[in-house]
């Protein structure tokens, strides 16, 4: 599904990712954990094609296709999705209008308005959102929790093949976390893969990962099953730095 090899990324001259490699198979949920500054958000932005980052080396393949030269919208149409940590506000554009435009731009054939309406209602119900929410302007004045729910709502509407979730759990209370997790689990199946990027193990209680990777200083330093997340919770990132810090700097 997703294959990243020897990825080197710079922003404003500083190297953030230093030879990162990762393979995500079809239907798999991967968690990438790491301390602040390890390059987690850079990875999610680069995967989706943010123009501010310079990829200096390496490859990113999605379903066997090299996506490195593709714009974000082209990647979205292939089935990639990024749940943003800090989604932008777009004043004057309602959530419903945005969802309609987005869904129709990734689909080959436009969805009939009534069907669209029904779909929005259905997905909002899963996310336990008030129907009035659809008329609010996109992310404007949203609380942190509302923004994250709105991200997952978009994911449910767009039905991507691969979702990258950039610290979707940060700043969420336990109720919101459960709702967000429910949204992700809704899509879980043989055709859906996800990369959950997080600082904490907490979200992994609700979305059980198949694989856990630890990221440090721009690369993945160790991988394992879901137990790795628990070990990390017990021992903390200092343990990772001691164990793998020297390797990361070599």
């Amino acid at each position, binding site marked *: 599904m997703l294959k990243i090899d020897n990825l080197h990324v710079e922003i404003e001259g500083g190297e953030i990712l230093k030879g990162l490699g990762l393979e995500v198979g079809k239907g798999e949920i991967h968690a990438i954990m790491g301390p602040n500054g390890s390059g987690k958000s850079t990875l999610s932005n680069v995967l989706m094609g943010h123009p501010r980052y310079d990829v200096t080396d390496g490859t990113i393949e999605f379903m066997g296709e090299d996506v490195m030269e593709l714009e*974000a919208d082209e*990647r*979205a149409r292939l089935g990639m999705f990024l749940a943003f940590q800090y989604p*932008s506000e777009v004043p*004057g554009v309602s959530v419903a209008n945005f969802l309609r435009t987005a869904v129709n*731009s990734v689909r080959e054939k436009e969805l009939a308005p009534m069907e669209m309406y029904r779909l929005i209602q259905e997905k909002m119900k899963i996310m336990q959102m008030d129907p009035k929410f659809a008329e609010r302007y996109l992310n404007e004045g949203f609380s942190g929790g509302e923004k994250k729910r709105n991200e997952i709502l978009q994911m449910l509407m767009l039905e991507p093949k691969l979702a990258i979730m950039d610290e979707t759990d940060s700043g969420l209370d336990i109720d919101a976390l459960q709702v967000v997790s429910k949204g992700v689990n809704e899509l879980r199946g043989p055709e859906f893969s996800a990369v959950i990027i997080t600082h904490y193990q907490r979200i992994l209680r609700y979305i059980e990962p198949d694989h856990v990777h630890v990221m440090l200083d721009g690369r993945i330093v160790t991988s394992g099953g879901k137990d790795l997340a628990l070990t990390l919770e017990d021992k903390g990132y200092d343990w990772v730095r001691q164990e793998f810090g020297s390797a990361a700097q070599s």
Partner: protein
Amino acid sequence: MPEDKSIQELGLEEYKYGFHDPEDYFFRTPRKGIDPEIVAMISKHKNEPEWMLEYRLKALQSFLDRPTPQWGGDLSDLDFDEIYYYIRPMENQGRTWDDVPDDIKNTFEKLGIPQAERDSLAGVGAQYESEVVYHSLKEEWNKAGVVFMDMDSGLREHEDLVREYFGTIIPADDNKFSALNSAVWSGGSFVYVPPGVHIDIPLQAYFRINAENMGQFERTLIIADEGSYVHYIEGCTAPTYTSNSLHSAVVELIAKPNARIRYSTIQNWSHNTYNLVTKRAVAQKNATVEWVDGNLGSKLTMKYPAVYLTGEGARGEILSVAYAGDGQHQDAGGKIVHAAPNTSSLITSKSISRGTGRSTYRGLLKVHEGAVGSKSRVECDALLLDENARTDTYPYIEIEEKKVNTEHEATVSKVGEDQLFYLMSRGLSEEEAIAMVVNGFIEPIAKELPLEYAIELNRLIQLEMEGSVG
């Protein structure tokens, strides 16, 4: 026709509404430029009363005496001697659709007027060249005593009303361009709404310039008598021509006590048009006047709709949106004068600049001594789509009264890389993403327009932006 060639050379694609009919005129002034002889010729051709001729000649003198304004936009390429000041395309005014000649119908068809007719958008007054050729007014309005006709007919059929109010809100010598309009005006709308009459469906007029080097000087006067309500809508598109065109209108509104006038305009001039318009309204006791003003296209627009709040409790509102693309300058804003107690006003101005486009907000808020308890709020927001785009704000505020409440807020925003990335990550192309941000930006104004005009405004802005993504 020589014009055909030059238009070909220009490339019609550049301006979607740049189609153009054979110029088959019924009457046109024998030469370009303006002098008393030309003015007299226009007046004679229209069989006007003597007082109007005198009014025109006096205005002409004022126009000639006044220097070209040096503030605002660059008018140095505007050559007053290279313009035909009056062209009349056909002999009589069309009363029904069937009376309208085919080539004019074609033009309207391209602009979607027949649809508007079919959708029973009610009274359509359309200006073609210097003359209104097509007018229809719903029966019930006639019965209610509502007058909606072109200004020339208004002068003929309601001379007393016209004489009483014409030029009282905007005197001929108010500024150089109001003087020019007063000297050579032709067409425009005359509206009178009797006391207590509410017109629920907007009155609509379409304007169109269709002659090279021809200025369009329409003159509109709307009188809303006590307790009445009217919404007047005007939309304009102009075809592309090789040399500079001038559009200089004068619009006067009078809202008598408890009356409400809403005047909505979407203007989309071709990119070589100078659009220099004077618009002013008086709101008497407890009356409301609202200007909704969309400015697209043109080379330079200078337009500052004004509301004079002369009666206690009067309210004025100005909503304006401007789009300045490559090489364009939109110098727009609003002017509110509080001259009575407990009056209130709101100016909302939004501008979008792209490429080398420049938009200027120029506004005046004046509160006279004694206008106690007045409230005013000015909000101007600029959106820049490019590094080279430019915006300036000149908010003049003169307050002579202490017991008032005024607020001013100005913001400048850019379409950010992160914002675009966010929208594109959901499958929108760069162009669609920018259009979405822009449509969201103007939403507060679009939602004040009837649906079909809101759609038209969004569509026009999209057309203007098409192909300009770098």
